[in-house]
């Protein structure tokens, strides 16, 4: 059997998830040039928010019916925490040197992990997450699991919605203006504080959707899941050109597919037997990042400054 379609599908699914999380990094960076390292934990909190809703629902309810409510729960939790973080941790430091909010973000990330670990029931170990039952669908020689279908449907929808929002609505145009020149934007009557909160909130909402996808796919969530996923998503954002929303999604997909292909094929390249497989996939993903940045320091879609938001 030819494995290539399957490996591409694996990479695409993983990459779509990275991309959804990467939106949060890229939007916040685009507007206030802050690398929000706590974003991985916002993703994790989205997952626990969704799980909480699921556990609170009557047990007879089908998963399809529960998913919108779970997304809502995850989004509310993630957005609330993210907005609180912006208000109480980042806003007081807005005029401080760049390093101060960066370190704050790292501290916040650890604090959020510990908070979930301590206060969420039984979160000291992985919690099981609901999953779809049933067989996989076969598309072009690749098996797509029912749970994976979710991210493949939702990720493009989210991207289209975000694209329309940024280019067509008043708030979206305000966002673009703020990212280009916050001071002038303020003079033009744009409430930049509101725009910044909005960027945090949208990023958190996307992360929560990604967390539901993660749970449905892997059947479990845990307090540490945000670390690796956040790091990968950040990489995806840089790869695609940080500050560009389409770049984030593209970077995610490129990263996911690269990881998948590295796992699948690197060991078959002559002389590379030792450097293939699951253990080395992250090394190859980052090697790719360095390569792209050497050739295009601004990332894949980095030059489209006008689309920043």
């Amino acid at each position, binding site marked *: *059997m030819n*494995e290539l379609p*399957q*490996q591409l599908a*694996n*990479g695409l*699914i*993983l990459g779509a998830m990275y991309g959804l999380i990467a939106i949060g990094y890229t939007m916040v960076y685009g507007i206030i040039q802050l690398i929000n390292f706590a974003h991985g934990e916002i993703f994790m909190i989205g997952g626990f928010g969704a799980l909480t809703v699921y556990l609170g629902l009557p047990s007879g309810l089908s998963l399809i019916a529960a998913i919108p409510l779970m997304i809502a729960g995850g989004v509310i939790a993630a957005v609330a925490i993210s907005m609180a973080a912006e208000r109480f941790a980042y806003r007081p430091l807005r005029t401080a040197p760049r390093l101060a909010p960066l370190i704050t973000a790292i501290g916040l990330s650890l604090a959020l992990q510990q908070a979930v*670990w301590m206060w969420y029931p039984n979160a*000291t*170990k*992985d919690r*099981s997450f609901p*999953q779809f039952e049933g067989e*996989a669908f076969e598309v072009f020689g690749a*098996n797509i*699991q029912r749970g994976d279908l979710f991210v493949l449907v939702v990720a493009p929808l989210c991207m289209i919605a975000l694209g329309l929002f940024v280019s067509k609505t008043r708030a979206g145009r305000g966002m673009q203006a703020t990212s280009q020149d916050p001071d002038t934007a303020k003079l033009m009557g744009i409430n930049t504080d509101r725009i910044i909160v909005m960027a945090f909130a949208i990023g958190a909402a996307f992360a929560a959707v990604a967390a539901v996808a*993660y749970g449905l*796919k*892997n*059947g*479990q969530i*845990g307090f*540490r*899941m945000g*670390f*690796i996923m956040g790091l990968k998503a950040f990489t995806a954002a840089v790869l695609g050109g940080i500050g560009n929303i389409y770049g984030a999604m593209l970077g995610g997909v490129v990263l996911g597919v690269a*990881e*998948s*292909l590295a*796992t*699948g094929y690197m060991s078959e390249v002559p002389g590379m037997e030792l450097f293939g*497989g*699951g*253990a080395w*996939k*992250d090394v190859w993903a980052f090697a790719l990042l360095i390569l792209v940045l050497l050739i295009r320091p601004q990332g894949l879609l980095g030059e489209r400054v006008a689309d920043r938001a």
Partner: protein
Amino acid sequence: MRHRSLLILTAVLTTGALTLTACGSREDDKKSSGGGETQTVVIGVDAPLTGDLSALGLGIKNSADLAAKTANKEKTVPGIKFEIQPLDDQAQPSVGQQNAQKFIGNKDLLGVVGPLNSGVSQSMQKPLNDASLTQVSPANTGTELTQGNDWKTGDKKRPYKTYFRTATTDAIQGAFAANYLFKTAKIKDVYLIDDQKPYGAGLAASFKTTFTGLGGKIVGADHINPDDRDFNSIVTKIKGSKAKAVYYGGEYPAGAPLSQQLKDSVKIPLMGGDGMYSADFIELNKKAQGDIATSVGKPVEELESAKKFIADYKTAGYKDAYEAYGGGTYDATWAIIEAVKAVVAENDGKLPEDARAKVLDAMSKVQFEGVTGPVSFDEYGDTTNTMMTAYQVDGGKWVSKFSEAVK
């Protein structure tokens, strides 16, 4: 203004910290001088009490606690009261080493039970050895811990005289797994995966040696990162390799999603060692049916000698199950209690000055009927009980299939 308030804050914090330290040392003084008629012996327990592996770790803590309480109730050692000091190692070698220092610092502490992970043990062995503090692990299966790094070439050398264990080695576990898969389950083509940790890699290596020796074929091999949860790319490779089973050297947090993603695309079982043999593996994995795991000893539920342990554990009302290592932990703790008993009996019913060294001497002679069977240690500190059992998931439970003492 700002500077002044900062100064005041610093001053207040420093004073607070000093006061706290003072309190701490006073408390310590009281404890060690509170000898009198009954002397207290503390047994340290090191296990992951939080994190992914906490299910196993809490079972270890509770079982050690039960052994200490039982000894106190039955007055096993007259004039001695046993206490346990549980410390959380978070399954991390660096934390384990800090815990070892804490154990060494506690003067009443005469033995350590634990840890769960072979990797953590590697960082604890040396400090404990330097302090002549006896350590008995109920769960470490890494062969090099007792037989040195060159055990594979037959050059066995015990690295630390203070280290004992009631669990058998990965050399034996891997061989048992290979035998079971090849002879009983009749599977000849296996894909091999490990998580690059000392436990997982060691187990996978010893499985491979025996399995290929029997004539089985390793159709592919790969390594994973234990923090990953997406293994679809590897699963796709496994599907292409036509393997009939996957042997996984690692633990259940990554094993559960690996098994599930495997079943999503090929219907072949995942087999692992005692690190996979946990109820959490099934809870986190809705497609565990048919998966196989080996574990040390016989299932305590099937042992006549364990009936009392199970009943006592239930009566004590612990919140968490005793899990895979409950019986072994009870025996490990009891071995220390027996050693203390021998030392005290020799010294007119009191603890001698150099109690740690004496307890260590007594350990090699310890012999008793434990929960998991007869307990004693060989010249390497390994248990003489090499009983192994293969389990298979059936209807949402681990069901024991086959037990054998490996020679």
